[in-house]
């Protein structure tokens, strides 16, 4: 048997062509061609059974993953949660205040969620602490996807300002350097 399906009807149409057109009304050729009509009728049953199977599986409550399996997946994910690095926000005589990169990312994402047309993506944060000066400088590298119709520079500037406000409000230090990369348009 040939690797490709080269079967053709006597009229020259291939079975593949007919299968591809099963959902469409008959072409002018098919209206007059008994061979095509017969082939279509033969395949109609397969098409109907396939659609019926797809729909019944889709709506059958038995054809779903049981909740305990979902719980196991999530429990394992939590147990193996990727430990993000900790950033020292402040040193005091009573001890230090640290925040995980992940928690700080959530704060940044929350700020980004308030800006229409922006979806935050990956976020990397670095911190340079100067113990002598007692200062902490953050570098935030945030990647985002934007809507296609928006004014990207203005929107991204709005996002930067939002982050610049959210970080001091949340953790009491300046946002420092905020690098934003638009890596994708999410609606195209």
């Amino acid at each position: 048997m040939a690797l490709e399906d080269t079967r053709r009807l006597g009229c020259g149409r291939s079975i593949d062509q007919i299968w591809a057109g099963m959902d469409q009304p008959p072409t002018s050729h098919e209206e007059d061609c008994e061979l095509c009509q017969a082939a279509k009728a033969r395949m109609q049953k397969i098409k109907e059974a396939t659609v019926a199977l797809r729909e019944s599986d889709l709506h059958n409550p038995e054809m779903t993953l049981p909740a305990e399996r979902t719980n196991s997946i999530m429990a394992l994910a939590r147990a193996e949660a990727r430990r993000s690095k900790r950033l020292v926000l402040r040193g005091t005589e009573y001890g230090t205040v640290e925040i995980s990169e992940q928690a700080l990312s959530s704060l940044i994402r929350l700020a980004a969620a308030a800006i229409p047309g922006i979806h935050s993506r990956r976020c990397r944060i670095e911190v340079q602490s100067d113990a002598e000066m007692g200062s902490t400088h953050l570098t935030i590298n945030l990647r985002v996807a934007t809507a296609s119709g928006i004014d990207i520079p203005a929107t991204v500037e709005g996002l930067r300002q939002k982050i610049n406000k959210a970080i001091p409000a949340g953790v009491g230090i300046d946002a420092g350097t905020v690098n934003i990369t638009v890596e994708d348009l999410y609606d195209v």
Partner: protein
Amino acid sequence: MNDSNPACDADTDEGSIVARAQDGDLAAFEHLVHTYQDRLFRLAYRMLNDRTDAEDVVQETLTASWRALPMLSDVKAFGGWIYRLATNKCLDLLRKRSARAETITDPAEIHSTLDDGATRAPLEADPVASAEWAAQQDGLTTVLNTLPAVQRACWLLREIHGRSYAEIGVTLKINPTTVRGTLARARRRIAEGMSQWR
């Protein structure tokens, strides 16, 4: 789930959710699990005809995806990638089964397997139409079970799950033209099988 977590926003595009899950965001990962778990289960069940095996495959696939997510370079490729992981786990399991010569070949046994699971006539339907519907369903699922595993995977991915020829080709490590040929052979066998069944 945490309401304040923007990962769960229904409007967020999948690429962004994948990117957040790559950063270790559990809520984003949970969103992906909920999006894909039932689709993958339907695929695995039709591949394997065994509920427990299908559940195992889905659980292993999604667990493996959590571990491997940071390596995924294109966030938009997540759907194809997760289908690929699941399909190949099914094919591996079928290879192991056939190595143990435990494939079910007795039609009666195939039928009893199916009765556990999935084929139900729609309620409130015309009795004649629904009897015909059930016969077609049984015919199709029975014939699907007799197809070689790769043909079955091809058929399910294309006709039930609507995946692209290119993606199926990558999944099965064959070129898209061969995907078309494999689908055509599956279609012929289904046509033959269904006409015998009825």
